[in-house]
């Protein structure tokens, strides 16, 4: 390539986009007088990112009113909250959907399905007043109110809720929500304001730098290692037969590492245009090919790309998702090899696609504590032949017990009594399909809509069926990127990393705990468009809503049209499952889990 003439620009800097532009120096100064910031060691922070900078750019001050829901269980978020004044309550029990202003998922009967179909609105995006706002008909007490300049959702009858539900009160100086923010996991509890309170919201970038302060870091680390690491380790299927004492030693030795950027979706919109080689090069390296194995990498969240050097670039051989292992083959071989054989090196590189949180188990601990408790059949091929000396009899009783535990640990995992295949990553026969899926981040999709273009007659029955069950509004467009004979349609994939859910002010976009379906609860959707902007696949649309006569709803104060986010809800409630897949006459359309390869490769296999 010849070098074009240079254009001088300002290098984008760490804090170009502050979390809250209205943070003033006075606010920062005030914060620095409050704990725990007043006890932090200034010198621990790099010069480029001083503590005051973090407070200025990565924090936001909140005033919450009694009864306001601060975080909801099950939500994804990328910020933690520090209580400055006032009290909040952490609810140990789960709140019902209705209490959170969401419509609980329910099965729609035959009669209702029919009447919904027959009473389709002639106008696009029709909503009843109840659907437009939860405040309508709610009496004087409004569920959604503006607090300062942001909408907030309030619990009705907070005393009653607190009386009925077990809760823990938090006071000034206490931090909550940091695990969800740091490790991209759903919030584990709902927090509501008990009194009027002031909170500092710290986004994860800031939180990460704050860990430079040893005390702060230790607090976080201990908290994590005590409460969350065991949970995360037990989610790993490979460790499901590990006895408790071994597990303790594994927990002690394991480390958590994070790679890449949590806001990968924002980056992706830029990097997807890059050449694939450049794209790979831009991804943070976790493990390089050819190193001597020192640790087993277990992906806890995010995605990893497993690649080998091929010619001048890297060839992707698999992608890793939650629970997948990297380096098991090499480590198992090295651990079991007779002394005469030479140890082997890492065969692949691992790169973080977007972001990657990985647990690393040192090889010594793995060989001593874990390896004897792995089913022979689950070991990699090369290690299996060496395995003899490591055989340990396991009784059925133990297996049953382990299964129960394992089941509790991971709801989405397949039947634990089955051997877990592809524990070391997901790959397809066709490398190009694999590259394509990773490049377009389709591996995020749990319910991706894939069309086999060799069978699709373009009849649009899928769109029609979708419209028919959604009051006349199709929730997807039959278009999308095409690879070979597959079209990945622009329909919500109900991603395993639902970035759309981050930042929803009212929790209107929520994931169903049992089905994993991400759906929008209209009454509490304030139409802010955060989710639509966050979705890297552009699968959420903002629609201006009208009533059955076609009259648009407008905000009573500003007069602006009311907008609602609209997306595929996987036809939840309909017993028929997604209408699009059911309506395809030619077996061309399927809703499929792309985070694993077997569904897609099986599906392709069937039609080869």
């Amino acid at each position, binding site marked *: 390539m010849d070098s074009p003439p240079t254009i001088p620009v300002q290098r984008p800097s760490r804090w170009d986009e502050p979390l809250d532009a209205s943070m003033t120096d006075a606010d920062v100064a005030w914060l620095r007088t409050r704990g725990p910031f007043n006890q932090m060691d200034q010198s621990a922070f790099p010069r480029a990112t001083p503590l005051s900078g973090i407070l200025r750019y990565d924090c936001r001050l909140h005033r919450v009113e009694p009864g306001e829901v601060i975080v909801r269980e099950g939500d994804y978020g990328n910020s933690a909250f520090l209580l400055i004044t006032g009290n909040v309550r952490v609810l140990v029990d789960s709140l019902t959907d209705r209490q959170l202003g969401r419509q609980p998922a329910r099965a729609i009967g035959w009669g209702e399905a029919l009447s919904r179909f027959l009473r389709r609105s002639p106008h696009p995006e029709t909503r009843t007043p109840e659907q437009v706002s939860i405040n309508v008909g709610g009496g004087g007490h409004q569920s959604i109110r503006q607090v300062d300049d942001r909408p907030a959702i309030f619990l009705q009858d907070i005393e009653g809720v607190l009386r009925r539900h077990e809760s823990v009160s938090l006071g000034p100086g206490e931090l909550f929500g940091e695990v969800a923010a740091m490790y991209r996991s759903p919030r584990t509890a709902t927090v509501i304001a008990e009194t009027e309170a002031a909170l500092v919201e710290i986004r994860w970038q800031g939180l990460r730098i704050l860990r430079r302060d040893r005390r702060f870091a230790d607090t976080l680390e201990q908290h994590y290692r005590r409460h969350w690491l065991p949970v995360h380790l037990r989610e790993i299927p490979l460790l499901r037969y590990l006895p408790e004492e071994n597990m303790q030693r594994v927990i002690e030795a394991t480390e958590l590492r994070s790679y890449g950027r949590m806001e990968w979706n924002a980056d992706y919109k830029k990097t997807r245009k890059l050449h694939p080689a450049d794209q790979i090069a831009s991804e943070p390296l976790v493990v390089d090919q050819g190193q001597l194995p020192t640790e087993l990498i277990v992906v806890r969240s995010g995605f990893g790309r497993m690649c080998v050097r091929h010619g001048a670039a890297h060839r992707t051989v698999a992608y890793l998702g939650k629970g997948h292992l990297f380096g098991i083959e090499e480590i198992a071989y090295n651990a079991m090899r007779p002394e005469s054989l030479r140890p082997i090196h890492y065969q692949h590189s691992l790169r973080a696609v977007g972001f990657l949180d990985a647990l690393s188990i040192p090889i010594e601990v793995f060989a001593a504590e874990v390896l004897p408790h792995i089913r022979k059949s689950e070991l990699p091929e090369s290690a299996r032949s060496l395995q003899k000396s490591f055989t340990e009899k396991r009784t059925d009783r133990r297996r049953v017990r382990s299964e129960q535990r394992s089941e509790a640990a991971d709801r989405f995992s397949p039947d634990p009594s089955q051997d877990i295949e592809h524990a070391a990553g997901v790959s397809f026969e066709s490398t190009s399909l694999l590259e394509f899926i990773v490049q377009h981040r389709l591996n995020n999709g749990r319910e991706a809509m894939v069309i086999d273009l060799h069978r699709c007659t373009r009849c649009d029955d899928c769109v029609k069926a979708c419209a028919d069950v959604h009051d006349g509004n*199709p929730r997807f*467009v039959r278009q999308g*990127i095409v690879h070979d004979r597959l079209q990945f349609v622009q329909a919500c994939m109900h991603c395993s990393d639902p970035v759309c859910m981050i930042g929803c002010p009212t929790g209107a976009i929520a994931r169903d705990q049992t089905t994993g379906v991400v759906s929008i609860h209209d009454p509490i959707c304030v139409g802010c468009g955060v989710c639509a902007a966050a979705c890297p696949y552009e699968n959420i649309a903002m*629609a201006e809503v009208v009533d059955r006569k076609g009259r648009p709803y407008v905000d009573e104060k500003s007069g602006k049209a009311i907008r609602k986010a609209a997306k595929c809800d996987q036809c939840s409630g309909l017993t028929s499952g997604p209408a699009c897949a059911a309506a395809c006459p030619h077996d061309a359309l399927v809703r499929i889990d792309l985070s694993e390869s077997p569904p897609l490769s099986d599906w392709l296999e069937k039609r080869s």
Partner: protein
Amino acid sequence: MPAVDAAGSTGDARVRTWSGRRRRWTVFFLICASLGAVATLAIMPAEQLFKPGELSTPHAQILAGAVAGENCGACHHQAAFSLAAWFQSASDPHAAVRQSDLCMDCHHRTIDANLALAAHNLPLSVRDQMTETIRLASKRSAAGSTGLLPRLIPDAAVDQNDVACRTCHQEHHGAEGDLLSLSNNQCQTCHSKRFGAFADSHPDWKGWPYGRGGELSFNHATHQQTHFPSWKSGAETFDCSVCHPAGPTGELVRVASYETSCKTCHDEAMNVQAGKGIAFVALPSLPPNALNNVSGWPEDATGFADGVISPLAELMLRADPTVSRIVRSVPGGDVSRLSIEDPQTIETLSRLAKGYQALIDDVDRRGQSAIQERLMELGISPGPFQPVLRSLSPQLLESAGQKWFTRTNLTGTQSATIARPRPKIRLVLADDDDLLGTELLGSSLLGEPGDVDALVEDPLLEDPLVGSKDHSSTVMSDVPPSELVQVGGWYRDDQRFAVSYRGNGHGDPVMVGMIETFAQLAEHDPLKQRFFRAPFVAACVSCHPGATAIPATWRAKRLVGQRSAFTKFSHRPHLSVSALGDCSHCHQVRDRQTMRDHEFVFAGSEFKALERESCAACHHANAAGEDCTQCHRYHISDGGLR
């Protein structure tokens, strides 16, 4: 990737979607289709529209002339296409009428309407009987080898006592449609005994095709082996094709005419057998004491009781109530066999003589009607006797009466004719014109008795006739009277006091008439037996055994094309096979020489049995076919199967 919102609409210009367009097309098309349907209904009569296919040509021709509205109704009792009629079926007065009844409206000529719907048109009892016969027969013969296939034939879906015509005859399959096609399985579905391939499992037939009641008595064996070689030292050869030539259609004639086949040998003998012929009346010789109160009995016929009452005369006399018992009491009609000692005999003979006189007198006066009335008195149809009547002139009898009876004293007008004296001359009337003198017959029937008297008494009318008779009698006096009618006819024999008929060769209508008349008598009537024993009658009946039946059959009936027989056969298609051109390929006459007589008789036929194998050589599925319907008919009357 273009950003498109979820609704997929790109602007506010409303474009009709595909489904919207499709809906409009659908509505438009359906409207057009319904309009088209209505238009078709309006233009085309419903009968034509709904007809599911052309009728076969015969039915179509019959219906071609019918009024349009009656087309369907001719066969479909339900046919009514008006909207109202569709809802009236419940109260249909013709509910009991069925399609088969409508078929029978035309087909009752060939099929008995009462049995039309019964299987094979046979009553249940007959079918049961036949089933039992076949069951027993098949039990006896171990041969009934039926394969697996026949057992797989399902049982019939139809009631055997109610087989609708359309079960087999399916219409509306085009002008060329075969109404008669029926598979072997379909044929056998009703049968309890089923057969597979013709060669293996068709039951044996015993004597068929021989002994099927030929109406001529002809023994092929004796003719071939005895008569032909011996007659004129074998001047004629025994050749099948002489008697059984191919007819104009190519089908073999069952028997060629007498003239071509039999006459050469049999004509002469038959003339000899005819002899003196058969007498209408022949006066017996009666003892004088029996003639005490009988006037004018010829003297030549007086003496010992002798002579036989001719069968015709006995028939006539039986009708006379005064003598009918007397006549029956004469054994064998032979008056000589009456016992002289019996006091009754004189009386009997006396009454007999009077009966003769009354008969002749009666015929004399009333002519043919007298004879006819007498026959009817006996319950005999005078129809067959008509040829006799036509040829027998009453005047011949009148002349006989005048000639024989020389009575003078007669009471009243009754015997006026007889009272007139007549010269004793032989008179023979053999004129054909006279024999067929209907003019005379008519006048005598129409006229009053008085008129007849006046006519007869007129000498001017009588004299020339009498004179001419005298003349002729003198010329031919030395020739036996029977020889006067050498080509046949009635004659008077004054020697025997008889009026006789001498037959004329083969097929004489008068003889036919007499035979058919006597055939009507009861089987054991001695008169009947006596008549048929007479040589001139026997000459006919020995070859025409069917002549004694009622109705009489003289000719061999054509068997081909017979509608009532269960088995049908035509030589015609077989003759196109060159090997079958030789009749003896199938029909072999038994050798008379090597076979003893009683064996020959018990063999039942002079032909060797026709074996199934010889048919099966060609009749299997791959050659000439083995369909049931090739040889068998379904519609058979009761007699057809026997």
